């Protein structure tokens, strides 16, 4: 029983990280109809930068803020320079561009910081809570992770539903040409979408780095899990991203706990395939319209 509780709790905290990455992917998908395969690499770079800042003597909080700020700029620059030219081309082009960016970023990170994984500090204690006589597999840092992700999700939801800016972003995402005819600056909305997504990704990076360690390829499984979570919840649905993340986190936690961690990536693949076969729009999609 304790094992089940442990697995559930760690599944929730892993799931929160997947949810953050999924949110980033969903934001970009909704804004520009592109899956950003470079998301994991982008958040890896911002986490490396935060690490450099912290190692230079700054506090964790400063490092966190630096990660967010670099994420914001990074996302905006990538959209404006690399993605804008392929936004109205066939989807294959954008897939290749983001994959190319992923390859380039991983290589550059290796060149600058080396391929050896290194440690990254956690915000709070990693010692599990003590309940009764036992120590849970859930620590104060995990609470921090879950709280941060929930707050981010709520802030984004408020931005989109309640603000004028959010309305413009949604209009630009759903119907860019019509939005232009209404005077919305659609290009800026796209850039903003990517920038916000990169911020969400940077948060995920800083949160997960203490447990997976920081290295050029260490965040690849996180990207894949984030992608699976996003697809699970529906690429168009931010709340779906969060729920998909938690569900996936739990599923992978149980698989790792009872069958061994080597099977986790394959389990993610199986879940992905099942969802895509059965409900391609995700668990929370409405029925797709007939195409003919």
């Amino acid at each position: 029983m304790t094992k089940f509780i442990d697995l559930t709790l760690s599944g929730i905290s892993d799931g929160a990280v997947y949810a953050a990455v999924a949110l980033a992917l969903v934001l970009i998908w909704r804004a520009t109809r592109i899956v950003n395969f470079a998301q994991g690499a982008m958040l890896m770079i911002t986490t490396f930068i935060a690490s450099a800042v912290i190692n230079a003597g700054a506090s964790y909080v400063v490092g966190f803020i630096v990660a967010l700020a670099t994420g914001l700029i990074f996302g905006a620059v990538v959209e404006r320079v690399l993605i804008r030219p392929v936004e109205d081309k066939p989807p294959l082009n954008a897939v290749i561009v983001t994959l190319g960016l992923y390859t380039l970023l991983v290589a550059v990170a290796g060149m600058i910081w080396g391929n050896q994984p290194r440690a990254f500090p956690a915000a709070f204690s990693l010692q599990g809570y003590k309940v009764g006589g036992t120590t849970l597999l859930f620590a104060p840092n995990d609470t921090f992770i879950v709280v941060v992700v929930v707050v981010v999700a709520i802030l984004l939801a408020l931005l989109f539903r309640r603000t004028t800016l959010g309305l413009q972003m949604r209009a630009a995402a759903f119907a860019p040409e019509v939005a232009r005819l209404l005077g919305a600056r659609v290009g800026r909305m796209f850039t903003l979408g990517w920038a916000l997504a990169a911020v969400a990704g940077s948060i995920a990076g800083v949160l997960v780095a203490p447990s997976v360690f920081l290295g050029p390829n260490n965040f690849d499984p996180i990207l894949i899990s984030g992608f699976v979570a996003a697809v699970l919840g529906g690429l168009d649905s931010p709340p779906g991203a969060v729920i998909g993340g938690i569900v996936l986190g739990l599923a992978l936690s149980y698989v790792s706990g009872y069958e061994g961690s080597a099977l986790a990536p394959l389990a993610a693949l199986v879940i992905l395939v099942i969802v895509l076969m059965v409900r391609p729009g995700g668990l929370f999609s409405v029925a797709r319209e007939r195409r003919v």
Partner: protein
Amino acid sequence: MRRGRSLGRVGESTLLRSLLVIVVVGLLALGLSEVITPYRNTQLATGAYFFAVLAGLTILAGLGGKISLGHGALMAVGAYTVALLVGNEHWPLAGALAAAALVSLVIGIPIGAAASRLHGPYLAGATLALAVGLPALADKFPATFGGENGLVLNPPTPPSWLGSNFSLERWEAWICCAGALVVLFVLYNLVHSGIGRSLRAVRDDSIAASLCGLRVGRTQTFAFMISAGCAGLGGGLLTVVNQLAQPGAFPLQLSLSLLTGVVLGGLGSLTGAAWGAALLVFLPSWTNDLAHSFSLSTQVSFNLPLAIYGVILIGAMLLWPTGIQGGIASLAALVRRRLPASARLRVDSGARPGHR
């Protein structure tokens, strides 16, 4: 039809044309392997097995319109099949290679069926997950697959009738080129057949194609199947050259470099696959030389090929989406337009229209 007039029956029959092509290419490769050093022969072998994989992949991506990041994993399937059959079961090499192609082809069927229902980014994501997840199986079953260290193969010995001076590297080059020629033959005929046309139709407008009676799912599954078989064969040939099959040889980066080769060479073009293979062979050694002449640290030189692949992928999509072969085709079209009318007629009768 003016098309085949100057070349007679050969011009009109795809089968005969393809045979002509592989005979010519085969003779060229034969002659080349005669005169070059053993090191270059290994490069020729490497280029040949990369061509096998890239040709299948470019047909899938260019004609079928499906992007797959899982072909590195499919190469691994072929590689391990050969290693197991030759190493453990002592099969002859030719049989093992054929089996490698067949096993990958069969595995390609369910993946292809799934792929035919997925589009663009969904397919890329699913095959990405495959590329990362499949090699992990080797760790899960270390007894069969040799774990991290992989399976070792004895080098193939050249048959005695070739003489005792026949180098191992040349023999490997012959084996790999033979495999590449088989792939070339099959795919050339495929591209110019009704199936090739069906693929293009489905890629361009799957709804219209299905309304015309084309079986969309079946056609795309078939394309994936064939490309999986090619990848498996390529992986088997890789094992012959490296005498080793290990999970570390098939990371995600391999699938990404395959994609780069296909994009740079030109999607959908068999000639483009050759360009891509050349890239994959020469780039790593070129960057090594670059690293040495600039005394770059290992950190930098190790990651340099990948960085360049990334730049190529991005640059090609932004600046030059049709790749090398597309550039050549555009140049040829430009030249043809500039010719005076009478000369143009003669050129057109020999050229193959609609061929990339």
